[in-house]
């Protein structure tokens, strides 16, 4: 059994790639098959990822040498607790979106189901690849696979979506160039691309200007990819005009996998010693603080629901990066190190995934894009709207939701780091969240239609989305609360603590 699990990291990537091709072939003959192939594949990957996580937690990291080549020369896949955790999140949301997309894509893009699922599977391939790889150039390749399929998926609606996709393409490519340059700089100094190898070769070179420049290039390149505040400009359009399940994947997973890539580079390739050498993380904190406030303020000004959610994602990337920035200074259990950041990655995936899928449900049912059009939907689509409310109050941070737990942990981390300004920023931001989310809730439930005295009339016309879309939505919404309680109860914290222990971010007692 153990040997089988050793192969899972590469299998996860491989079966996804194979299924992308087989979807094309099978779709050629029968247009009904692609969703099923895709769902089955992602389900298999998800189960595999859980087995990997279990293995990693109990037996330690998995190393897989691609083609049997020894690490410094060949490509190595390394899965430790951090990747395994991210892998589970990404495949879970991937599965949810795949199930959801079956009906919604049939409705939205009836001509393109085959290519949609082929691209979707490529996207999953890229995401998994970024996560499992232990080689920075390989990581770059997978980031590009993921981004290219994302560009195509975003543009799949045509018309204005093409413009959004093009903007993303241009900015994303620039980001990728920065990233590649960073890799080049490191390679020119060390002659290695393997992460573990680099982490041994780099420490004597921390004073080297090339190495420092490489780190800055990584930050900038990945900031574009993860839509970190001043470089977020591609994100709102891309999120707003992509098919909703892709918006959910973009917001919940794609930008977060880029954050994972950043964490991996910062802590595995470089190390805490390097990060404390320069005030990089202090600057990161402040930029993140601005991102939180600006993202929320911009979200308040939006009329389009999905655009609003997109700006909210900008703010939430700020949360994650703030937590990353604080990770080197907060050392006390249980908010030590990367715990708040990794926690919010999962939490944001759940909340934003749910919100985008709900937004997609409105588009699916009635082609509603703007917040003002959502009147009376609370009665028409009670379950969908209830899911929205739960996810929205999670974003606001009402206990015991996941949003509350993230907020609490990041606040504690910033208190320990003696950066009180961020406590204020977080509290203000939850008020801003209240403003823009409550506007939607109020419209859905409370605002009456013109000339309508009591809302009895629309009572009968209940019009819910199909079950295969409703279950993912409700599942994510209930997880927003369930995970919140699990975090509070500290059941899932030990996983994250292993990550901290790995990077030396925890006080050993």
């Amino acid at each position, binding site marked *: 059994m153990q040997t089988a699990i050793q192969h899972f990291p590469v299998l996860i990537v491989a079966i996804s790639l194979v299924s992308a091709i087989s979807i094309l072939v099978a779709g050629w003959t029968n247009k009904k098959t692609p969703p099923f192939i895709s769902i089955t594949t992602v389900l298999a990957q998800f189960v595999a990822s859980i087995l990997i996580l279990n293995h990693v937690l109990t037996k330690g990291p998995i190393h897989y040498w691609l083609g049997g080549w020894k690490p410094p020369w060949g490509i190595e896949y390394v899965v430790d607790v951090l990747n395994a955790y991210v892998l589970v999140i990404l495949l879970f949301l991937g599965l949810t979106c795949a199930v959801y997309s079956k009906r919604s894509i049939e409705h939205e893009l009836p001509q393109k189901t085959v290519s949609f699922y082929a691209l979707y599977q490529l996207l999953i391939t890229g995401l998994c690849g970024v996560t499992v790889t232990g080689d920075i150039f390989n990581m770059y390749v997978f980031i590009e696979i993921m981004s290219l399929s994302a560009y195509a998926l975003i543009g799949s609606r045509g018309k204005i979506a093409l413009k959004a996709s093009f903007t993303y393409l241009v900015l994303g490519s620039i980001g990728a160039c920065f990233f590649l340059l960073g890799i080049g700089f490191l390679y020119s100094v060390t002659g290695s691309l393997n992460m573990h190898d680099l982490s041994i070769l780099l420490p004597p070179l921390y004073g080297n200007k090339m190495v420092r420049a490489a780190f800055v290039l990584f930050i900038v390149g990945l900031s574009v990819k993860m839509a970190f505040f001043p470089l977020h400009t591609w994100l709102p359009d891309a999120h707003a005009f992509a098919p909703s399940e892709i918006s959910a994947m973009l917001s919940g997973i794609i930008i977060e996998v880029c954050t994972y890539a950043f964490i991996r580079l910062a802590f595995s390739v470089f190390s805490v010693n390097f990060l404390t050498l320069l005030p990089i993380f202090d600057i990161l904190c402040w930029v993140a603080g601005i991102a939180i406030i600006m993202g929320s303020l911009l979200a308040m000004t939006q009329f389009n629901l999905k655009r609003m959610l997109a700006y909210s994602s900008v703010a939430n990337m700020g949360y994650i990066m703030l937590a990353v920035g604080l990770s080197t200074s907060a050392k006390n259990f249980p908010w030590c190190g990367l715990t708040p950041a990794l926690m919010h990655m999962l939490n944001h995936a759940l909340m934003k995934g749910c919100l985008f899928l709900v937004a997609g449900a409105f588009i699916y049912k009635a082609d509603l894009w703007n917040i003002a059009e959502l009147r009376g939907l609370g009665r028409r689509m009670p379950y969908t709207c209830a899911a929205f409310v739960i996810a929205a109050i999670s974003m606001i941070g*009402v206990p*015991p939701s996941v949003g*509350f737990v993230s907020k609490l942990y990041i606040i504690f981390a910033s*208190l320990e780091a003696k950066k009180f300004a961020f406590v204020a920023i977080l*509290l203000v931001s939850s*008020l801003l969240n*209240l403003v823009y989310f409550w506007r939607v809730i*109020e419209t859905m439930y*409370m605002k009456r239609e013109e000339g309508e005295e009591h809302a009895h009339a629309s009572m009968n016309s209940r019009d819910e989305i199909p079950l295969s879309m409703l279950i993912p939505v409700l599942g994510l919404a209930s997880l927003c609360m369930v995970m919140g309680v699990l975090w509070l109860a*500290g059941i899932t914290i030990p996983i994250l603590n292993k990550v901290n222990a790995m990077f030396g971010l925890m006080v050993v007692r």
Partner: protein
Amino acid sequence: MIEIEESLRPWLAIACPALAAIFILFSSKLPNLREGWTLLASIVQFWMIYSMVPVILKGTTIESYLFTVFPGIQFGFKVDAFGLIFAITSSFLWILVSIYSIGYMRALREHAQTRYYCCFALAIFGAVGIALSGNLVTMFIFYEILTVSTYPLVAHEQTPEALFAGRKYLAYLFTAGCFLLGAVVLTYSLAGTTDFDKGGILSVAIAPRSVLMVLFVFFLLGFMKAAYMPFHSWLPTAMVAPTPVSALLHAVAVVKAGVFGIVRMVCYIYGIDLMHELGLGIMLASLAAFTMIVASLFAIAQDNLKRRLAYSTISQLSYIILGVALLSPMGITGAMIHIPFHGFMKITLFLCAGSILVTSGKENISEMGGIGRAMPITMMAFTVGALGMCGAPPTGGFISKWFLGLGTLQAGNLIFLAVILISSLLDIVYFFPIIYTAFFAKSGGTTLRLNKGRKIKEAPLFMVVPLSITALLSIVFSFPNPFTDTILNLARMAVSILGGG
């Protein structure tokens, strides 16, 4: 010295309204079943809570923790005498208001009744959770649940006015929630715990005085639900809600959660000694005194009955704040027993206002000429409630004011005695005209008839019975009887454990 008993009863008490909320949602098509859940849950809950009284009176503390949130913070309940007073009040009044709600909502054929009953149960869930929680973090969780679950009730009418009130409500209370979260987090990082402890968990040894002062202000802003001035204006605005909501939430659960929090903070987080040392008692007392007088003056100017009652609530809540701010045993006792007594009296007044609205559609006092002759029981109950507010002898209000007065003497602060007396006088000034108008003013011909020419009668039995019960109880409280003794003993118990003075 204090024994601790592990028991699941707090969880069961909490579970009642939570389960009720779920059942209500799923029986939206069957009104009778839906209201049945509410009644059943309220009665079982009261029974659960009341069954804890003998245990507590023996000097035992009931504890039940579920899991550790952070080192030193456990999520769970610790039932003590003071918390039980608030829990008993909320759960008992929930029974009566549920009965009343059935009459009120059906008489007015209100829309969205399922939402109403569901959120109502959730609000009680929050309120009782606050009452029983053993530390600040648990309390904060329930505090926020209370805020969110009451929003649909405030904005129930869904008119632009109601939506405005709902927004204002959320804006005030969520801001408060942020301050409270800040305060809780800061307390934890200073003291390493947030448990309510009889002597307080903060001291000058662990933090500079200035930090403690700032923290106090944070706490105070956090408990904005107590509607002290100048942060009171959400309460009168929220009066657009259906009357049972105003009655239970705005005279009992929500605002009392605010003052409850302040008492908890003063007595169990700061501790009486630290309050003395920092001189915060006198500051808090001044704030309360200011509110008592000014809110009463505001109340005089209101013509809308519910708004006048709202300002009366603001003033009365500050009695409780004043009582605890005096930091004398008698004062704190007075504050603690004013929570149930004021609850019963104020709920009577609100229920009466609701009955008048249902039968006659009148909201303004000036239109109520002669209504006492048409609705004698309702207006008699109103009179009892009003007398109680003024602190006149045969009502519970007299007892709590008596203790508060003694408290000022014990604290040696005669100014506040004067404030209490003046405020009582002002209470008379704004309550008496209502009673006078109702019973003695001329009805002015057609005013007592509805549009269709139907004569105004008493409200439906579902409404008259609860308000008569609360009115009767308001009187009964002033005489020695088991129920009063229970509450007095609980308060004495709580104060004796505090051991301040």
